[in-house]
């Protein structure tokens, strides 16, 4: 029996504290080590793109296969592609989320729908491209162009919007609905007047994330009418709306894909320029989504 102070930690306890500290620091190191290279890469892209960036670069026409000129055509293509995709997928996806969360009974069929949503999210993007070619172009006979590309993107982004809508709806407390039902409102009236307004921000976040996803994706559109170069009207309304629904189009992601392969005489800053513009666009849209979410959390009343 030693007469030492019993409150002095034993070597076992000291060791265990040391292990915990070591675990904390090593996991912290790994986490930071993941983020530092990313920060480095982003700064490097920005630095190398710097000489190319100017107003003329954003609004100029693509010339000499992207080796000179600007990226106006691809920018407009990405804009309209994303807009169309959103117009198709947002209503369907939001209503699907409403169905799954508010209407669907708890049975095998609903579980099958849930499995379908996660499976759809796991389908490789290049298989979506094959589906688009097979279903829209070969079977329905639609021309390759802006509309078919947007439809393919819509199929791909549907699970994103369904999942985020479901999450937004599940954040509305159950007793809001019950109170409304008790006043004699029907299911749809409850959804329209109580559930949707209270989950608006969450749904909006999902919609914004779909924009980011659709704007960055390349594989589903590369065989659906995205091309290297098209002539774009130098002025007038056609400069702002250069593509019809069934026209071939340029898109920023596909532009980057085509010029990042080894093309002799391709100035480095042109590649980095389009990479930076695409990245900035997408990070900006994502930032917007985070902002909406943050404001939402602050304003939450329950």
């Amino acid at each position, binding site marked *: 029996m030693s007469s030492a102070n019993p409150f002095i930690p034993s070597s076992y306890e000291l060791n265990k504290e040391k292990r915990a500290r070591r675990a904390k620091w090593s996991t912290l190191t790994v986490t930071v080590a993941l983020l530092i290279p990313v920060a480095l890469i982003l700064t490097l892209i920005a630095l190398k793109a710097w000489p190319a960036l100017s107003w003329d670069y954003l609004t100029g026409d693509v010339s000499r296969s992207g080796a000179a000129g600007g990226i106006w055509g691809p920018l407009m293509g990405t804009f309209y592609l994303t807009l169309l995709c959103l117009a198709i997928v947002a209503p369907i996806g939001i209503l699907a989320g409403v169905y799954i969360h508010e209407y669907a009974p708890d049975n095998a069929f609903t579980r099958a729908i849930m499995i379908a949503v996660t499976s759809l999210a796991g389908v490789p993007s290049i298989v979506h491209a094959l*589906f688009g070619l097979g279903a829209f172009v070969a079977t329905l006979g639609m021309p390759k162009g802006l509309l078919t590309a947007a439809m393919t993107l819509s199929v791909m982004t549907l699970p994103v919007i369904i999942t985020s809508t479901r999450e937004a709806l599940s954040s509305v407390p159950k007793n809001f609905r019950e109170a409304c039902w008790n006043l004699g409102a029907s299911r749809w009236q409850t959804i329209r007047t109580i559930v949707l307004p209270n989950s608006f921000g969450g749904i909006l976040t999902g919609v914004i994330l779909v924009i980011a996803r659709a704007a960055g994706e390349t594989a589903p559109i590369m065989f659906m009418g995205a091309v290297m170069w098209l002539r774009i009207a130098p002025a007038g309304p056609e400069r702002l709306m250069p593509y019809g629904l069934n026209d071939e189009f340029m898109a920023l992601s596909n532009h980057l894909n085509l010029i990042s392969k080894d093309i002799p005489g391709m100035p480095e800053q042109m*590649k980095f320029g389009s*990479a930076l513009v695409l990245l900035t666009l997408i990070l900006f849209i994502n930032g917007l989504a985070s902002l909406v979410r943050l404001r939402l959390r602050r304003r939450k009343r329950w």
Partner: protein
Amino acid sequence: MTERTPSRGWRAALSSAADWIEKPIEALIRACGWSSIVLVAAIFCFVFWYAAPLLPHIDWFGTDGFFTSTHWHAKEREGATYGVLAMIVGNFAVALVAMVIAIPCGLAAAVYISEFAGPRSKEWFKVGIEILAAIPSIVWGFIAITMIGPLLIKYAGATMGTNLLNGGIVLGLMSIPLIVSLAEDSLRAVPDSFREAAMALGANRWEIVYRVLFPAARSGLLAACMLGVGRAIGETMAVLLATGNKNQIPTSLTDPITTLTATIASEMGDAEAGSPHSQSLFTIGLLLLVITCAINLTANLVIRGNKRASSN
């Protein structure tokens, strides 16, 4: 039967219109709800349909067999052979390299963010991970060519910058955000009472993590890793740019390879619609679809099995 009083005023008219419209709206909602199941079925059907004419003519396990040879000469009009062994090996090799990087890093980051980080730094790290997740795959491919490639030539002794290792690194970085967020979700799903009970027995933070949380969140963590693998196998653009596109079975980390996804992406542009070449690419698509769906379904079963076990 009671007689209804006739409704008066635009407000009443509007509300009766809203009641009348309820039925079609509910039908519309139901139709949209079923859309995902219809689409998954449609994807399988269409990819199968456009691969189907070739399927009876493919030699599956022979000397020039689909699964057993590396002879991919799908463009030839006479004597075309469809061996995708090198692509399958390449696909799994690059996913393996990616997972060797992504699983330890992803789990460590998830543990730090969910268990050790303070509330403020947690938000910052999450933003960082979200940025990582937001970078589109084509930009990753661009990073692979212009930045990682030269580094590999300089320090890893690679002759070509685009190779298996490059693809693995890029895919690993791309899969990390998915693994982190799923693993963090499953760690957070462990009830606090587990942590409190362990703390009451004298466990410290780290002991809670590896003695209590890891076993309790086991299946969630496993599912996170599996979904990471699924993502890595299905990824296209980054792999297309980063791996060098050479139809060979890799013997070292710095060999250029090709994958199922990259083959479709690089050849579909030249393939004539309805030709055997195009059908062979749809066959590869079908194989990819089966592999990724199998992985996703298994991951789902793993998660579901856990839910059932913990609710009992």
